[in-house]
């Protein structure tokens, strides 16, 4: 494990390693960040998959954001993590120049793509990872198969994304014991996700709740977003000490969301309170942090 960087953020120090491990430390009993440690950036609303549960409402008619001329990018602190998403971020014509700019600014971009796009564009993704233009690769699961597993294993920083209520227990068991990393996302009853919600979704969510204790033994890492933490009551599986050490904070506390298509920012991608994009990151973060605390 190599250190990527270390920086001061408000009253604490952040150390980031090349396998994604992040450590926050200080001599106080609270953290007061001045700028976000990470942010979700939506760069396009174009996607040809039209997944029925997509809470971003991305479509083949979706437009791309202007990602090369957004001034706030230049105000981000080095080693800020960017979770780039869409739509299909691979479809953005300026993706590579944008990633090169991120590299110059010493930012740490990661990207999430749909499984179909991951498999189809695997060579490109692998090259981007080799060139350190992207670090983490999130892959949204659509169906388990050997090809997917092999490709995930070929990229050490890949993380398989599944949605509670969409993924089945059978599919998860087929992924067992391949040393994969798994991120479980909560079900967002938002936009198309609202229409897709049904008794079947609720049942699959309930089955996943019951499976958790078994599941975590069969992956290298199992992570949860904040919505999944609530929906699956993840705290029941941890000691108070573990919870205090591993719970990385509420949405907006250290993180934020930026939509470069609509040029808005918010606490998270599902927040309904959204604000026009500014040119400096600090006042934007200050605003979302006030909502989070």
């Amino acid at each position, binding site marked *: 494990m190599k250190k990527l960087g270390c920086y001061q953020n408000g009253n604490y120090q952040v150390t980031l390693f090349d396998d*994604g491990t*992040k450590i926050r430390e200080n001599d*106080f009993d609270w953290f007061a960040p001045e700028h976000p440690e990470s942010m979700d950036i939506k760069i396009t609303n174009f996607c040809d998959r039209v997944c029925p549960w997509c809470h971003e409402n991305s479509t083949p008619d979706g437009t791309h954001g202007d990602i090369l001329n957004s001034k706030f990018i230049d105000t981000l602190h080095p080693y800020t993590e960017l979770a780039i998403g869409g739509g299909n971020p691979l479809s953005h014509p300026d993706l590579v120049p944008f990633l090169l700019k991120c590299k110059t600014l010493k930012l740490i971009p990661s990207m999430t793509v749909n499984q179909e796009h991951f498999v189809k564009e695997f060579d490109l993704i692998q090259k981007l990872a080799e060139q350190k233009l992207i*670090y983490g690769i999130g892959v949204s699961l659509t169906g388990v198969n050997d090809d997917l597993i092999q490709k995930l294993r070929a990229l050490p920083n890949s993380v398989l994304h599944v949605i509670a209520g969409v993924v089945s227990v059978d599919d998860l068991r087929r992924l067992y014991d391949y040393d994969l990393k798994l991120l479980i996302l909560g079900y967002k009853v938002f936009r198309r996700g609202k229409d897709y919600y049904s008794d079947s979704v609720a049942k699959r969510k309930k089955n996943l709740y019951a499976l958790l204790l078994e599941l975590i033994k069969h992956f290298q*890492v199992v992570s949860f977003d904040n919505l999944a933490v609530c929906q699956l009551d*993840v705290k029941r599986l*941890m000691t108070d000490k573990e919870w205090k050490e591993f*719970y*990385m904070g509420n949405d907006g506390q250290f*993180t934020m969301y930026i939509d470069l298509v609509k040029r808005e920012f918010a606490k998270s991608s599902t927040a309904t309170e959204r604000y026009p994009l500014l040119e400096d990151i600090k006042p934007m973060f200050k605003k979302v942090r006030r909502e989070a605390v």
Partner: protein
Amino acid sequence: MRQIRQNVFETNSSSTHSITMCAKSDYDRWKKGKLFLNDGSSWFSYSPYKTKTFVTREEAIDIVTNNRYRPDEPLESLDEDDFLEVLRERNIYTYDDYGADFEYFEDSYTTPSGEEVVAFGYYGYDG
């Protein structure tokens, strides 16, 4: 204060969290004093054993000494109590030491494949 995100980059807007549980066989060996619990606090160690939840005495020594912050004194020169104290300072525990001042709990579960899994820990007192 310290918080750790293990082994994964941010690929999603929301914060992420990690859990590690253990097999009952390891848990039993720890209870019998044959293993130490490495409570996830060896981030400055270069040891190949640092990510293991349960470690042997030799592996625990390697985690502590093969480290950016080594103990001031060689571990061989310490008596058993001082040796265990050094390990405790680095959150490596015997069964007896773990959560000694707190309310301890454990829970077990058998997976469909027959493997027994143990979840354990302790709660701090409110006052």
